[in-house]
Structure formats: structure tokens, C-alpha cells
């Protein structure tokens, strides 16, 4: 085996080994669970980095190595690993955040009776997530995808004794499942038309398909991403998922699992591009834009620190989806800037994983110290918890898109990609998306300023004995803060001809994009291979095409921060006036756009109606029928009774008189001969019954055992006679 395959096996295998070990021995050696878990994922992290550098130095993707998984007739399904730039970037992101979360949880979950279970589930989640990003075909990815969903369910419901917790877990599971059903339909469709699910040849059978089918297939795939990545209107599960332990929110519901949807769309981007009308990609872009705007607006009025971050996550995921939608497709033309959206979305995925992971871990540190999640009960924490405080500020600046921080480069890259979709692609919807994105870009610094100020600054509003945690808490925070501040520099746009600093990320990821798109260039209707520029040369960047927008975005960020400071710091009275003046909007936002209510109305209520109707039907119609039949029986019995008492009885009495006479004769015989026989028989049966009824123990396993034993005996008899 080649070294990269061995590495991949190790990266996936170590956490799997950890899961098995902790899962089996966790109850005995509770103390060791956390160390085993952190160690395995730590080694995986190092190996991921080695794999990353191997791919970088190779400067190309490894050929897919696969084994036959199973064959059905003429179709063969493979189990393989696809190690290219896209996969290794995801590997490094996932293992980094996972490692830091493992480390952080040592303190956070200290003393919890279920800590071994917690670590086992974290390990399983990590395996599944690493499996999603390395899978080489859709079905394999789907299997890991569902495993990730299961782990999410288990970890949200970790403290399942609380009612709201297990309801949140159920909600997350069901809502994402809605998307998964569509995704599965999409996978079926691709398998039906192309006869394969390998990522390298997804669109091989798409030549002869009609336009409608080519629009429907990518939309089905996208629905999977809508569910998993919490896009409008299936985002409702993510805020509830905050009931889980905070490290879980950081790992699963901020950094990795919710990004799996983005990864799915990125991986299957050829399917989206194959839709030459561009409708599918436009839908993707608009769903992303609406989600980005909606999430940002709702985040402005949340009081729970984790809910603010949850809606912020929804909003940021919307940006990524919007970026993917901006992969230019109308008319099947793919000019050089077609991949901006693709690269920008994954760039934002990476930076977001780091700074949102940081923010969630920071909030976890705060919650652990203050035992509350309500921001109005915090305040002034920066003096008591300086490391948490300042790293949180760095994370917020990165999220807000403050210049030079990671989020600045990635978010502006997305807005720029959408803009070029409008300016060069003449897609008018893209203009709407840009406007929504810019509004979101204004609201993001606003709500983060609010969040940071309420939590860490001002006067303490409630007594608490907050203090900084041990190094296990602060090390992940500092580590992620460094990444949140600095990771953006791997992908800053070019300035001038060849650029001041090369956009490493873009040229690196470009390989994956070209590989993904190149194989459909054989398709006569798509001229992709010919119109894309060579990745080794510089790209035209959006900041060159529209510097106004670039600097406009900076101004918008500052405007957002200033507004936040004015409303919450300098003019507190303004806040009350704002709430009173904009009361309808405020209530609308407080109720989260009424989307939960809408779902209740659209999905939950009808379901309950159907259930109620079935119950009524059962009670009225079926029971009625049963009662009717019994009534008829009673009446019939009455008729029979009359007939019996008047006619039959007369005959019987006559016969009876005869009988009495006869019986005196037989009586003697009866008493002496027959009774002796009958009593003897009765005694035999009675005694037998007394003994045998003890078999009916009522103990179910006994019956089962008897059944099983009988089956074995019968089989043995059959076997003996057959031989």
C-alpha cells in the first residue's frame, strides 16, 4: 500500500480504536477514557498534517485507491479514499478542532458520571467526520454522513434526563433526516443515470438527460446540505441543539458537522454545474443569502450566549452556501472566476471552523465559570477571566470581519464571488444576494459587539465567583485564537498582476476544483475544460474587478461595530427607544421569524390531525362495527331463545318424561359402572393439569427458550432423516 493510504487508515483507525477501547472498557477505567481519547486524536492530528504536506509537496491529488465493497449484478460499489487538496484541508480542520475540544472537555466534563460515554461518542463522531471527508464515493460518504448524524443525536442528548434535552436531540435528528431523504433520492437518481457513485464520474450519464432532471438532481443533493448545514427553512434544529454540552456545540454544531453540508455540495459540484440553466446554483445561492440574513437578524435579539452563537453559525453557513451558489453556471460558461465562489466558501468554512470553535469554547469557559447562559447575568468578566475574554474578543473580531482577521478575508471573498456572479455572470439574483450579504455583514459586527460587551465588559450584573480554568481550558482557546487571527493570510486576494502575496489557498484548492470539473469537459454541451484558465497562472480577482465593494465592506464592518457600541455602551437609552420604536420587528425577531410555528403548522399539526383522525376512526367506526355485530348477535339470541322455550321445550319435556322412566333403569348401571370409570378419568386429568400448569410460568424468556429448543430439536430430527 502506498504511504498516503496507510496514513489515511491510521488517521481514521486510531479514533476508531479509541472508540472501541473506551466504549468497552470505559466503565472500568473511567479516569483513562479522556486520556486515551485525546491521545488518539492527537496522533491523528499530527498524521493529518503530514498528509497535508504530502499533498502540497506532490502538488496534485493522489489517485483514488479503492476496494470492492460489494457487487450487485453489473454494478460495483467501491470503498475507497480520495486524498486531494479538498480532503486534506478538511482533515486538518476536523482533527485540529476535534483535538482541542477533547482537551477542553477534560475540564468541562470533569466529574460527570458519563464522561467515558462522552469521550466514546466524541471519538466515534471524529471517525465519522473524518470518514465523510475522505470517502471516495457518494454512498460511502452517505454512510458516514448518517453516522455523524447519529453521533450528533447522541451528544445533543448527552444529559438525556432533562426533558428539553432529549426533545432537542429528537428534533435535530428528525429535521436533518428530512434533508437526508432528499439526499438519498438524489443518490438514487445519480446511480440510476450514471451507474456509479464514484466522485470522479458522477455525471458520466448526464448527457442525455432533460433540463428538468438536471435541475432536480442537484437540488435533491442540496436538500441534504440544507438539513445538515442548518439552512433556511430546516435550520430550526440548530438553536435547540445548544442543549448539548458546550464542547459538543463547538465541535459538531459550529466547526465540523454543520460544515459537512458545504463539503457535500463542494464535492458534488459537477452535478450542480451540469445544470446548464444555472437554476440549481441560483437556488443554492438564494437559500444561502436568505439564511445568512435571517440568522444575523435573529442573533441580534437573543439573550442566551449560546443561542447568539448558534444563529451566528446559521448565518455564517448561509454565507458559505451562498458562495457555493456563486459558482458560475448560466449557459454552461465557466470563465476564470467561476471557481471564486467554490474557493471562497471552503476558505470561509476553514476560518469559520476555527473562530466559531474558539467562540463556543470561550462561551463554554464562561458558562462553566458563571453557571448561567444568560448574557444579562454576566458582565465585567474580562477582569476575572482575561485569557477567555481576550481570546473571545479575537474570535469576535474574526467573525465580524474586522480587517486582517481570518473572517475578513474569507467573508469578503464570498461577497466578491457573488458580486462577480452578478457583474460578469449577469445573474440578477446575485445582486439581491449581495445586498442581503452586505446587510448580514453589517449585523454580524453589531451582534458580536453586543455579545462581547454584555458578557465581558461593563459592571458585573450578578454575583459570581468566576475564575479562569486550568491550562486544559486556556490552551485550546489560545491555540484557536492564533488560528482565528492568522489563518486568513493563506488565502488573501492578489493585488496587482501576480500579487504581492500569492493566494496559496486558491491555487491549492483550485486543483480539486479543476479535477472535479474537468472530467465533464468531455460532455459536448459543457465547455468547461476549455474556458477555465490554468491554475498555475494568476486569477483575476474580485477585488481588482470591484475595489469599491472591497473597501465598502470594511466600512460596513466598522459601521456595525460603532452601532453596537453606541446602542450598548454610549447611549443605553437609545436601546429602549429602538425596541419601542421598532416593536413589531423586535417581536418578529424575538419569535425567530415564526419559522418554528410555521413548521408546527405545516408538518406537526397535520401529522397530529391524521393521528387523531385514525384514533377517532378506530373508536367510532371500527368499535361501532364491532358493537353493531354484538347487538345483532344479542337480538338473534333472543329469537332463538323464544323458539327454544316454546317449541323445543315442549318436545323436550315429552321426551324428558320418557327419559325419566328410562333413566331409573339406567341409573343403577350408571352409578355403579360408569361413575367409576368417569371419576377415574377425571382424577387422572386433574392431577395431570395440576402438574403441567406449572409450565405456564408467565416468564417470557422461558417460552422463548422452549421455542428455541424445539426448533433445534426439529432441525436435528430433520437433519438426521435427511442424512
Amino acid at each position, binding site marked *: 500500500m502506498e504511504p498516503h493510504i496507510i496514513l489515511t487508515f491510521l488517521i481514521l483507525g486510531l479514533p476508531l480504536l479509541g472508540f472501541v477501547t473506551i466504549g468497552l472498557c470505559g466503565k472500568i477505567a473511567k479516569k483513562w477514557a479522556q486520556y486515551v481519547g485525546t491521545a488518539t486524536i492527537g496522533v491523528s492530528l499530527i498524521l493529518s498534517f503530514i498528509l497535508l504536506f504530502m499533498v502540497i509537496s506532490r502538488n496534485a491529488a493522489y489517485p483514488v485507491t479503492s476496494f470492492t465493497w460489494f457487487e450487485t449484478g453489473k454494478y460495483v460499489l467501491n470503498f475507497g479514499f480520495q486524498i486531494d487538496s479538498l480532503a486534506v484541508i478538511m482533515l486538518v480542520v476536523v482533527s485540529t478542532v476535534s483535538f482541542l475540544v477533547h482537551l477542553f472537555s477534560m475540564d468541562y466534563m470533569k466529574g460527570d458520571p458519563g464522561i467515558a460515554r462522552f469521550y466514546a461518542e466524541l471519538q466515534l463522531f471524529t471517525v465519522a467526520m473524518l470518514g465523510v471527508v475522505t470517502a471516495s464515493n457518494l454512498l460511502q460518504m452517505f454512510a458516514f454522513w448518517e453516522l455523524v448524524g447519529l453521533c450528533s443525536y447522541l451528544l445533543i442528548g448527552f444529559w438525556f434526563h432533562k426533558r428539553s434535552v432529549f426533545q432537542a436531540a429528537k428534533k435535530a435528528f428528525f429535521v436533518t433526516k428530512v434533508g437526508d431523504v432528499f439526499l438519498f433520492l438524489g443518490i438514487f437518481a445519480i446511480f440510476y443515470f450514471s451507474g456509479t457513485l464514484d466522485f470522479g464520474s458522477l455525471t458520466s450519464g448526464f448527457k442525455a438527460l432533460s433540463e428538468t432532471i438536471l435541475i432536480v438532481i442537484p437540488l435533491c443533493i442540496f436538500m441534504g446540505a440544507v438539513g445538515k448545514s442548518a439552512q433556511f427553512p430546516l435550520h430550526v434544529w440548530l438553536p435547540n441543539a445548544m442543549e448539548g454540552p458546550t464542547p459538543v456545540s463547538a465541535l459538531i454544531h459550529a466547526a465540523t458537522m454543520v460544515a459537512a453540508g458545504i463539503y457535500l455540495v463542494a464535492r458534488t459540484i459537477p452535478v450542480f454545474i451540469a445544470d446548464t440553466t444555472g437554476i440549481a446554483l441560483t437556488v443554492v445561492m438564494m437559500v444561502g443569502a436568505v439564511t445568512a440574513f435571517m440568522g444575523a437578524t435573529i442573533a441580534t435579539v437573543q439573550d442566551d450566549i449560546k443561542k447568539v452563537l448558534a444563529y451566528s453559525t446559521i448565518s455564517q453557513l448561509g454565507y458559505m452556501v451562498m458562495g457555493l451558489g456563486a459558482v458560475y453556471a448560466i449557459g454552461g460558461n465557466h470563465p476564470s472566476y467561476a471557481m471564486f465562489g467554490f474557493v471562497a466558501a471552503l476558505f470561509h468554512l476553514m476560518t469559520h471552523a476555527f473562530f466559531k470553535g474558539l467562540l463556543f469554547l470561550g462561551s463554554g469557559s464562561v458558562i462553566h465559570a458563571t453557571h448561567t447562559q444568560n448574557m444579562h447575568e454576566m458582565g465585567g468578566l474580562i477582569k476575572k477571566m482575561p485569557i477567555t475574554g481576550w481570546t473571545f474578543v479575537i474570535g469576535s473580531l474574526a467573525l465580524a470581519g474586522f480587517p486582517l482577521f481570518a473572517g475578513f478575508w474569507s467573508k469578503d471573498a464570498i461577497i466578491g464571488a457573488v458580486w462577480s456572479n452578478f457583474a460578469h455572470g449577469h445573474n440578477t439574483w446575485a445582486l439581491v444576494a449581495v445586498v442581503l450579504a452586505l446587510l448580514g455583514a453589517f449585523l454580524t459586527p453589531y451582534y458580536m459587539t453586543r455579545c462581547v460587551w454584555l458578557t465581558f465588559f461593563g459592571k458585573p450584573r450578578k454575583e459570581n465567583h468566576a475564575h479562569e480554568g486550568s491550562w486544559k481550558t486556556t490552551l485550546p482557546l489560545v491555540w484557536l485564537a492564533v488560528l482565528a487571527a492568522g489563518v486568513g493570510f493563506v488565502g488573501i486576494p492578489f493585488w496587482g498582476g501576480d500579487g504581492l502575496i500569492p493566494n496559496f489557498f486558491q491555487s491549492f484548492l483550485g486543483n480539486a476544483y479543476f479535477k472535479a470539473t474537468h472530467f465533464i469537459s468531455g460532455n459536448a454541451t459543457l465547455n468547461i475544460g476549455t474556458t477555465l484558465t490554468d491554475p498555475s497562472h494568476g486569477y483575476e480577482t474580485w477585488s481588482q474587478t470591484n475595489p469599491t465593494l472591497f473597501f465598502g465592506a470594511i466600512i460596513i464592518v466598522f459601521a456595525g461595530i460603532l452601532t453596537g457600541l453606541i446602542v450598548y455602551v454610549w447611549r443605553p437609552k437609545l436601546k429602549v427607544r429602538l425596541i419601542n420604536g421598532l416593536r413589531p420587528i423586535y417581536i418578529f425577531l424575538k419569535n425567530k421569524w415564526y419559522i418554528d410555528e410555521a413548521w408546527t403548522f405545516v408538518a406537526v399539526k397535520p401529522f397530529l390531525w391524521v393521528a387523531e383522525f385514525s384514533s377517532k376512526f378506530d373508536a367510532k367506526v371500527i368499535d361501532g362495527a364491532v358493537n353493531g355485530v354484538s347487538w345483532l348477535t344479542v337480538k338473534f339470541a333472543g329469537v332463538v331463545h323464544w323458539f327454544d322455550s316454546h317449541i323445543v321445550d315442549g318436545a323436550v319435556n315429552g321426551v324428558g318424561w320418557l327419559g325419566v322412566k328410562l333413566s331409573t333403569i339406567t341409573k343403577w348401571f350408571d352409578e355403579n359402572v360408569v361413575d367409576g370409570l368417569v371419576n377415574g378419568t377425571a382424577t387422572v386429568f386433574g392431577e395431570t393439569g395440576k402438574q403441567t*400448569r*406449572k409450565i*405456564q*410460568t*408467565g*416468564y*417470557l*424468556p422461558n417460552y*422463548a*427458550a422452549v421455542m*428455541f429448543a424445539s426448533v433445534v430439536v426439529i432441525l436435528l430430527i430433520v437433519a438426521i432423516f435427511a442424512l
Partner: protein
Amino acid sequence: MSVLLYVGAALFCIGVLGALMLRNGVRILMCIELMLNGANLTFLATANSTPEPGVAQTMVVFAIAVAAAETIVGLAAIVAMYRSKGWVTIEKFNLLKW
């Protein structure tokens, strides 16, 4: 193929042992599911050596569908038991006793 047969047999045996020895109703259901899957696996493993592999495979899909229905009925019974009694311990559930 022999590996598949061993795994199928192992699954079935684990299921039987579990179904006979465990007390929790839900676990017993899970064990029955294991038994079914063991049998299904055996079906599939031997499918290719029969003249019509499709028959065995169809049978398995059919068995999976039936198993799903069976699980639903079983779970419904257990939920009903839980609602009326407050526990799901099969051992204590001996209404049929003489």
C-alpha cells in the same frame, strides 16, 4: 463466503443468548433484530451458490421489511407496558402466569 457464514452464525447466537438472558424489553427487541440480521446475512452469503441469487436477495429485503414492522409492533407493546406499569422488565411482566 465462509467468513460471512461465521459472522452470520455469530450474530444469530449473540441474538439468541441476548433474547433469552436479558431482562429489558427494548434490549430483547434489539437482540431479535440481531438474530434476523444474522439469518439475513446467511441468506446473502449462500445466495450466490444457488441457481437464482435474486430470490435469496429479494427474500432478505422482504425480511428486512417484515422486521421493521415487527419492531414497530414490539416497541408499541413495550411502550404500552411502560405506560401502564412504569417499567419494561420482561421478568416482572407475568400476567400470563397460572
